[in-house]
């Protein structure tokens, strides 16, 4: 059996969600890998771009930040923040964004700002960056996070980026015309959202993970009734990830 790490599984599981021709708004870290894996395997005509304005970079090396010189090298076009974000929100484009977060709630809303009181937090994080913008404007958002009770919570300490807001139609009622949370990819599995209620449910658990493990590490009641085991990474997926996408092992270290 193939050996692979948690973050390799996450990158590949998320990459599989990208459709050919999608415009993929990538962050750094695992989301970069997921986008690049997707483009090299499932969605050759996907276009990867960054909030900083670099469109379809060569990505011969992994960027360590969205402003890394590697996101502006070999691109189709270099521009700026205004152009990039107006592209995310452009009605004629299907744009899918990868985000990370410190907390997510059952409606896919995200906190990347703080734990505790906003004005005097116990723990401060980076803040929205472009997170709120892409969550507001993109066709869909895929979020990465570690699966822990304190991260998958009933109530966010701060709602930085809106997913399905309070469920149902509440997102549209805010004036957000499209978009919403597509999936949350954790180290334990893949979470989707019910079509009507917009509540989170467990779609797939990764090989070696149990449904109980997922439930124990989730801070709210999670529908697991339709959960099945995810397909493990294939040899091809792993080879491309390790040899082409991140040969320096900057993001994912394969298991010893």
């Amino acid at each position, binding site marked *: 059996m193939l050996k692979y790490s948690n973050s390799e599984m996450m990158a590949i599981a998320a990459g599989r969600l990208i459709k050919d021709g999608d415009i993929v708004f990538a962050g750094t870290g695992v989301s970069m890998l997921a986008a690049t894996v997707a483009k090299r395997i499932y969605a050759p005509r996907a276009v990867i771009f960054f909030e900083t304005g670099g469109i379809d970079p060569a990505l011969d090396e992994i960027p360590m930040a969205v402003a890394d010189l590697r996101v502006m090298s070999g691109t189709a076009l270099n521009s*700026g923040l205004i152009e990039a974000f107006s592209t995310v929100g452009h009605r004629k484009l299907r744009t899918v964004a990868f985000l990370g977060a410190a907390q997510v709630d059952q409606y896919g809303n995200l906190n990347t700002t703080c734990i505790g009181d906003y004005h005097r937090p*116990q723990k401060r994080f980076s803040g929205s960056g472009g997170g709120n913008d892409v969550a507001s404007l993109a066709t869909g958002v895929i979020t990465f996070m570690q699966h822990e009770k304190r991260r998958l919570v009933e109530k966010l300490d701060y709602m930085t980026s809106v997913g399905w807001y309070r469920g149902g139609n509440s997102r549209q009622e805010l004036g957000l015309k499209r978009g919403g949370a597509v999936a949350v990819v954790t180290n334990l599995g893949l979470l989707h959202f019910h079509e009507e209620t917009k509540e989170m449910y467990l779609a797939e658990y990764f090989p070696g993970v149990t449904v109980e493990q997922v439930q124990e590490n989730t801070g709210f009641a999670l529908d697991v009734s339709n959960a099945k085991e995810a397909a493990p990474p294939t040899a091809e997926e792993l080879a491309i990830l390790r040899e082409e996408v991140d040969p320096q092992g900057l993001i994912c270290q394969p298991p010893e």
Partner: protein
Amino acid sequence: MTGCSEIAERLFSLDQAVEEFIFDGCQLAIGGFTVTRNPMALVYTIIRRGIKDLHLVCHSNGQGMDILVGAGCVKRLEIAYGGNGRYAPTCIRFRRAVETGKLEFEDYSNYQMALRFLAGSLSIPFIPSRTGLGSDLMELEGFSPEVRSEEKVASRKYARIDNPFSAEKEEVPLLPALNPDVALIHAQYVGEDGTVRIKGLTFADLEQAKAADKVIVTFEELVPRSFIRQDPDQNSLASFFVDAYVKVPYGSHPTACFNYYDYDPAHLNLYRHMAEDDGRFQEYLGEWVYGVESHEEYLRKVGIDMLLKIKASPGIGYAPGLDRK
């Protein structure tokens, strides 16, 4: 100053430029984004000269923002993202300052901050935006009413109006324009005629420069008029927007400058380590900022070995194979 076609009288040293244009309490915007093209040489000079009470208006100006906050120069901060990529998912001195109540701060998003600079650059008082709806960015204000009443601080974080062009009720959020007192930009090229050319991504630099009352541009290379005018479609900022030019090779180290040099991973890791502890951070400032008399001395400390390692490869724009862990 308008319309000067040659820049002799606007060439300053780092110290002269900071002395002339940056004052205690001024509202400041810095160019670049996280690990790239921050105007670090000017930032160090600001710290060294003891400028205080800055009102910093940032989108994601990672390294420059963090060290200004850490050095105690910043009283008030508007910010979208206080991180520095993989080298500091949350900027450490920023985080410490917020957690210990040392800063007046208010959160926006990157697009919102960029649009606020755009509005300022267009001389319009506000601009609509579709982002922020429903989120705590719109629900929670960071600044107190007292702060709100001060000059250059928006009287409200957002406003909402009904779209006057829509038959159905449709609420549209409005963002207040930003017009900082000073913008600091680092560019690759300045022509003898004062024209500025930035290569690679421009982030919100051009909006920041056009929104600001005063603009200081540091640059890698002074190039002939014939060079900069060979392809004017590539140029970024006309001379008449710039109040001071300072030639500073490696002026954005340890952040990167496309086509010139990559970020310095060793220095960013050193910074992270030193920033994690209050005492160590003072040591860092002592060694790399206060204890350094000139930019040349700073570069000698970085060392030619590192400068060669981070040198960008032509046609690629970064340093391929650089050890970035």
